[in-house]
């Protein structure tokens, strides 16, 4: 397996990615934490009057949504340009190209873990009782990673051939932000549409994160099943695309 054979390269590439990202700004990592907090503040001010949420912890409700969403947004964007952005590693030397996708997803994964850590500190600070369900977080986040990796394989390989994919993806992400229950409560969705609405795995993931962090509940098996199934589907499609398109990467990059 290439993952075990090249694990040193994967970890060095991941860490280098993080170093480059955070070394260039003075505040470094702090900025990537300030960003979601500011975003939460804006959304809170705008939407707290619109929805008249019954949620006592509306601010934290939004923040969990944002932090989860950022993993998808940053991860998919970074991974999409992982092949095109490192042409030397594709055309001048042979390494399994999946490594480029995996290491860029992993570096965003580490950033995301730190964001969640700050989130947990805020939960404690706001007096939310932390339940044992928090222990499920690593498993859920690994599941999210798997889903994101599958998606990224597809996006990264398609982007080599279609260079306007990033523009399209940006719009889709914009739409996705409002299709997921990030700023509004699930109760605003009409009852009859709820089963369809819950088919979106990102919606399920956000719901799971809120269950384990905010409400101290075990996530429902149905939501987990949907996430696992969509993860497997995305991974299969992503890998199929990648294997098919990989052969001419060095000519197209």
């Amino acid at each position, binding site marked *: 397996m290439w993952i075990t054979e090249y694990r*040193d*390269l994967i*970890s*060095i*590439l991941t860490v*280098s990615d993080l*170093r*480059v990202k955070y*070394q*260039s700004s003075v505040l470094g990592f702090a900025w990537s934490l300030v960003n979601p907090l500011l975003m939460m503040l804006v959304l809170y001010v705008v939407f707290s009057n619109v929805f008249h949420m019954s949620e006592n912890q509306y601010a934290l409700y939004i923040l969990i949504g944002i932090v989860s969403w950022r993993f998808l947004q940053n991860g998919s964007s970074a991974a999409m340009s992982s092949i095109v952005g*490192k042409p*030397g*590693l*594709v*055309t*001048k*030397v*042979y*390494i399994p190209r999946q490594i480029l996708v995996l290491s860029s997803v992993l570096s965003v994964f580490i950033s995301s873990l730190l964001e969640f850590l700050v989130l947990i500190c805020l939960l404690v600070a706001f007096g939310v009782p932390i339940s044992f369900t928090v222990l499920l977080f690593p498993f859920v986040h690994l599941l999210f990673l798997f889903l994101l990796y599958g998606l990224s394989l597809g996006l990264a390989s398609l982007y080599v*051939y*279609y*260079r*306007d*994919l990033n523009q*399209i993806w940006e719009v889709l992400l914009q739409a996705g932000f409002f299709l997921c229950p990030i700023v509004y409560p699930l109760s605003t969705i009409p009852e009859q549409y709820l089963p369809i609405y819950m088919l979106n795995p990102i919606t399920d993931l956000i719901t799971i994160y809120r269950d384990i962090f905010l409400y101290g509940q075990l996530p429902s098996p149905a939501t987990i099943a949907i996430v696992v199934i969509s993860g497997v589907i995305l991974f299969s499609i992503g890998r199929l695309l990648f294997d098919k398109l990989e*052969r*001419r990467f*060095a*000519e197209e990059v």
Partner: protein
Amino acid sequence: MEEIKQGAVEEGDAIIVEHLSKRYRIPHERKQTIFEHIFSLFRGGAYSYEEFCALDDVSFSVRHGETYGIIGPNGSGKSTLLKILAGVLYADGGVKVVQGRIAPFIELGVGFQPDLTAKENIYLYGAIMGLKKRDIRERYDAIIEFAELKRFENMRLKNFSSGMVVRLAFSTAIQTDPDILLVDEVLSVGDESFQQKCNQKIGELRTKGKTIIFVSHSLETVHNLCSRCLLLDKGHVIQIGPTPDVVHTYLRLIGSKGASS
């Protein structure tokens, strides 16, 4: 179809290539966006392209410990051949058998990050060239020593002169200890004294019995290093044989081309 078989090689051969061919697609229109693709669908234009044969029925073999030259005029397919051997490009037909770990010196310093320090870049580049972290740690002193950059190990690469970057790259790459080296005219790096060190190092590797595939325009270097040569022209093998003979043919080939044009 291309196959890579390990261990199916005859004793003594490091590389065997049989009937290798590679065709590039040259599209009639460059379509690189989804928008352009959809647009052309409506216009009814199908995806059309010409094929350009970069390599056609190329066969040769390289023995273990041999220094083998590949020469030919521009556009003869030398780099394509090297990239197929490196595994970067896929062949469209033929068989390629490689025995041993192969290290491509097609371009030095691939993946260097200007924002990272020399030390970090050694680890990064070493890993890209196939070393484990442990190996790099062991060889780190030798690398920085050979590059003569001990004083600058914690300086960011963007503050290095281009000569220093190349020295760092060569020193790291040469420590990867491959069985087969693919060299594409990268050895003309650095100043005179570093150049000498490089040549010395290459000589050392040859005496250690490493296989070296050498692509160059410099006939003098090929003459000095390689015992056998392969002459390519327009993707076809013109001649394989002892270097002096092949170089002679090559010079005649260039001469006749010059006369006809």
